[in-house]
């Protein structure tokens, strides 16, 4: 006689396993967040956020790193968002459905999975060396924008194609041109999707280290950036440096830096998540 569980019992066991596995997945996230908050909270102060580092970065604040990241990220998103959305409009609304278009769409989707360090190499070769921008805000921002372009294009295309095709037909049938239809019917309805995607992109590139490693970030700069061609300190790179390269670094400063970065990134993600739930709720069609 072979041993066999009753269906009822095996269901019970399976469900328990699923619950346990979910807990195993979720708990570390919360643990990581709690560890950083607990250890970094004491370092957080107005002074920490608004002053320059001192004593070989072992004391003082992280202002230049915060400003550097803000500069790089805002430049990057200003480049990649308009180009990406326009490219998405082109691919989704205008491009003929032929082999070339399909290859391009496929390439763009797959470029989103290329490692960020490879984009760093590309940025080093093209922007830093070939175009001669040097290690600078501009080179870093361009690198990040190229890296994020496929993601922006893909999310924007998703938002555009979620607007029913029939809306376009209704508009065309009234004698409204293609562009006016896009502007007045398609874009307004795709905008929430595009914007939440954009916020998630900002969050993602704020935390990226590898692409700016050799294109923008500096170990230590004693002054604030003055032009687009300056090297800057950047928050994620700064965290990497102080946690691996500097001996006898006070732990609470490292955790404080990690906390600032985490707060920046998570708050933006949270805004995007909440906004998406909200727009899904009020969506009219």
């Amino acid at each position, binding site marked *: 006689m072979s041993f066999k569980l009753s269906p009822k019992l095996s269901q019970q066991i399976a469900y328990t396993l699923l619950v346990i596995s979910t807990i195993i997945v979720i708990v570390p996230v919360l643990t990581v967040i709690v560890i950083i908050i607990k250890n970094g909270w004491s370092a957080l102060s107005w002074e920490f956020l608004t002053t320059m580092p001192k004593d070989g970065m072992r004391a003082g604040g992280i202002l230049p790193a915060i400003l550097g990241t803000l500069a790089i990220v805002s430049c990057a998103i200003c480049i990649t968002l308009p180009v990406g959305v326009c490219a998405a409009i082109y691919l989704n609304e205008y491009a*003929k*459905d032929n082999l070339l278009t399909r290859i391009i769409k496929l390439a763009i989707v797959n470029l989103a999975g290329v490692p960020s360090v490879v984009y760093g190499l590309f940025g080093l070769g093209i922007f830093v060396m070939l175009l001669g921008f040097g290690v600078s805000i501009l080179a870093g921002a361009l690198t990040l924008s190229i890296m994020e372009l496929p993601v922006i294009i893909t999310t924007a295309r998703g938002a555009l194609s979620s607007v029913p095709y*029939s*809306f376009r*037909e*209704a*508009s*065309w*049938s*009234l*004698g*409204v*041109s293609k562009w*006016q239809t896009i502007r*007045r*019917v398609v874009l307004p*309805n795709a905008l929430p999707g595009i914007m939440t995607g954009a916020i998630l992109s900002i969050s993602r590139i704020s935390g990226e280290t590898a692409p700016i490693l050799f294109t923008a970030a500096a170990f230590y700069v004693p002054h604030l950036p003055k032009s687009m061609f300056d090297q800057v300190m950047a928050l994620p790179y700064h965290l990497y440096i102080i946690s691996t390269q500097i001996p006898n670094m006070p732990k609470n400063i490292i955790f404080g830096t990690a906390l600032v970065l985490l707060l920046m990134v998570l708050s933006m993600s949270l805004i995007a998540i909440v906004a998406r739930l909200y727009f899904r709720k009020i969506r*009219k*069609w």
Partner: protein
Amino acid sequence: MVDKIKVENLSCFYSGKQVLKDLSLTVEKNEILSIIGPSNSGKTSFLRTLNRMNDMNVNFSRKGDIFLDNDNIFDMNPEKLRTRIGMLFAMPIPLPMSIYDNIAYAPKVLGLKNKKNMDEVVEQSLRDASLWDEVKDRLDSSAIKMSGGQQQRLCIARILAIEPEVILFDEPCSGLDPISTAKVEEAMLKLREKYTIVLVTNNVKQASRVGTRTAFFLMGELIEIDKTRNMFLTPKNKLTEDYITGRFG
């Protein structure tokens, strides 16, 4: 009778597959021409060629010509053409905006009317589509929340607001209940006084109720076209007779 639309030797293809075969017919001014036929007989393809909606489909190609008031429509600006030939789709497609904005949308974008006149245009269009009384108190509410029949009449009003000369109806009642259908048909008959109408329908009875003339399509070919009464009483072609008596289709 004046010919409003003249179709000459029209053939249409999707990705090379022929859906209309060497079709020639005329639509007279201020008539309702009903087009009947089983599904896949090319009725809708024909309709979408009349206002060049098929241009939006990259796989579409055609041979032959269509004239609107003696001008070849394929030489016209397609957007201009569509303001002269309006189209109502099978499913009502209200745009996700208010009732008022749905009507005002096209006139505003096309720059037809100034702001003051817009209120009049909206009211008149809704009246002509027999919808005014039902919605006059809630013009600012979302069009998506209306019932199916109301939505379809809203779409008619939207077309009327751009004052076309011809209106194409593509199975406009296929998703509606009998009462809503009757209201749409009533609106259609009223519109006949001002407009020329081409109606594609799966519903043979509907064709007999509203059609001035009726055309029967089968497998992309025009089998027969005649006064509706003649067609239904004494069809000339055996296939037509079989179809309208319900023997196939």
